[in-house]
């Protein structure tokens, strides 16, 4: 299959707080790309600029070849239907149950019957590994891990081509985090998704990412596989990967791969 670029960011600038300067990034169809960087380096801001929530000061962001900040309302809407977003805190609608949350995009954007929508919702909720009993619960009744899964289910409601995940495993126990990493990989393989993950989780980088983009010094410093990234010589990366946590995780995955 030819390599198709789905997101292309060129020469991006964000003047607000001088976050990005001359930032370039290309994301290909069907890959899981992880975005790492210091806290406050502008990872979430970059995501918000791609998904039309925050306007960059200069530069262009192209998704499916369309310059997202130069579209009319109709084009924006059809673009928004082609991606799904999971926010850091889940951002589920607190007045709706899990099932109703997942059904919102379907009710809004399709003409399907209520029965079919309910069935699709039930399938999506099962797909992200939530038990059937979670469907009629309100977000306030769910644990952190379940909220994240429900948020992934809502992001997947319209079968998007790109999924943006903001720190999907943050604050989860290792079992739930591992399950979520596996879920992301499985979804990518079975649904052919392109996934952009913002993460701090070293395990996720090794287990789930195809490539890692490093946001440092206001631009994307490197985009490459995690294995090659650990070999690069950069002060921030050295601290990131060669601290005690980074080494432990790296050794674990190197051993697993040898077996």
């Amino acid at each position: 299959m030819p390599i198709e670029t789905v997101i292309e960011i060129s020469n991006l600038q964000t003047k607000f707080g001088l976050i990005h300067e001359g930032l370039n990034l290309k994301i290909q169809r069907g890959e899981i790309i992880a975005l790492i960087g210091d806290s406050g380096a502008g990872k979430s801001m970059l995501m918000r600029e791609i998904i039309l929530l925050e306007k960059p000061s200069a530069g262009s962001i192209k998704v499916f070849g369309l310059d997202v900040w130069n579209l009319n309302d109709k084009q924006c809407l059809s673009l928004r239907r082609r991606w799904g977003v999971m926010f850091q805190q889940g951002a589920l609608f607190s007045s709706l149950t899990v099932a109703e949350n997942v059904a919102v995009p379907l009710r809004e954007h399709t003409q399907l019957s209520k029965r079919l929508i309910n069935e699709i919702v039930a399938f999506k909720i099962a797909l992200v590994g939530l038990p059937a009993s979670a469907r009629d619960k309100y977000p306030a009744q769910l644990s952190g891990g379940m909220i994240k899964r429900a948020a992934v289910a809502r992001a997947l409601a319209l079968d998007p081509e790109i999924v943006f995940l903001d720190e999907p495993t943050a604050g989860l126990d290792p079992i739930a985090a591992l399950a979520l990493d596996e879920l992301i990989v499985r979804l990518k393989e079975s649904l052919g998704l392109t996934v952009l993950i913002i993460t701090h989780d070293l395990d996720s980088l090794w287990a789930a990412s195809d490539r890692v983009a490093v946001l440092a010094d206001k631009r994307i410093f490197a985009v490459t596989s995690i294995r090659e990234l650990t070999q690069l010589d950069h002060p921030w990366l050295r601290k990131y990967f060669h601290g005690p946590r980074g080494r432990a995780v790296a050794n674990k995955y190197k051993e697993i791969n040898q077996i």
Partner: protein
Amino acid sequence: MLHCGGGMGELFKATLELSADTVRCSGNWTLNGISTLERQLEKFSWPQAIIFDGSAIQAMDSAGAWLLFRTQQALEKAGHSVVLQGFRHTDLLHLVKKYAVQSTTPPSSHNVLEKIGRNTCQAFNNLIDFLAFVGESFVVLLRALLSPSRIRWQALFANLYSAGFTALPIIGLLAFLTGVVLAYQGGSQLSQYGANIFIVDLVGITLLRELAPLLTAIIVAGRSGAAYTAQIGTMRVTDEIDALRTVGIAPMELLVLPKLLALIILMPLLSAFADIVGILGGMLIANFSFGVSVTDFLDRLPEAVSLTNYLVGIGKAPVFAAIIALVGCYQGFQVSGGADSVGKHVTVSVVQAIFLVIVVDALFSILFNWLGIGLINAH
């Protein structure tokens, strides 16, 4: 891909075609494409043995795959034999099969009697809770008055400023306009009898005794009572109340007491302010429209309106204040869940506070009548 007029053209709709035993599937089996197909499927007449041929399907997503799976299952259950061939989206079909679950059954709705019972119990529990909250607040208040070092002075002054000083313009304007309206309405009736000077009695007694404290209470309930509920409610949602407890600060002392004290201090002052501005409004109209000069008005005022009337009005204000502060704070603590709950409780807070203020005002009228603190006896 071709787009017709921005939307998906008919060309891309998912379709079925029956020829002999083979059902040829084509088009886009996606969320956008299957809406008409779903309705067609119900009326389709199926042969006994069916072969689904999916080689002409252009695109498929999980919704389309689910619809196919659902149809296949229903047919097999009805005794048909079903074979799938030529489908390229095998991964997707496997995925749908793997996670196929019973579709949601709507939660059983309770019957009417059960609902009435539940609501009655809940209303009763709420009443008990509220009384407990009132009791606790007064214990805290008494303790604070006995040892004033417990009072959070900074929070108290912040509340005095935000609920009192900043409310002056709106209360002044509304009291002024109320005085104007009273003078106009009363004056036009009184002037028919040439009793223009009694405008003073009308405006003075109505405002000082009833309208000024009531008006102030309603505005404060809408402004500050709602704000208290929203503030405490949001703090509950974000666990800030629990955080206060863990660092050894009693939420009642930090959040409730300063608000309660501030409103009890403020309301008589705001009410007196409303008295003055309201009478000013009445005086102005009496002067310009009914020929009662400012001097006459001010001469008549002490004769017409006894001190008792003024004190009755001012005396009610702290009671209204306590109602507003307690209802506002109580509703804040009742918030659970999220943004939705905050909105609900803010509404309840304002409605309940105004309702209780008016009920208590009516009780005061009856009480004063019994005690003989009436209008006529006061002279």
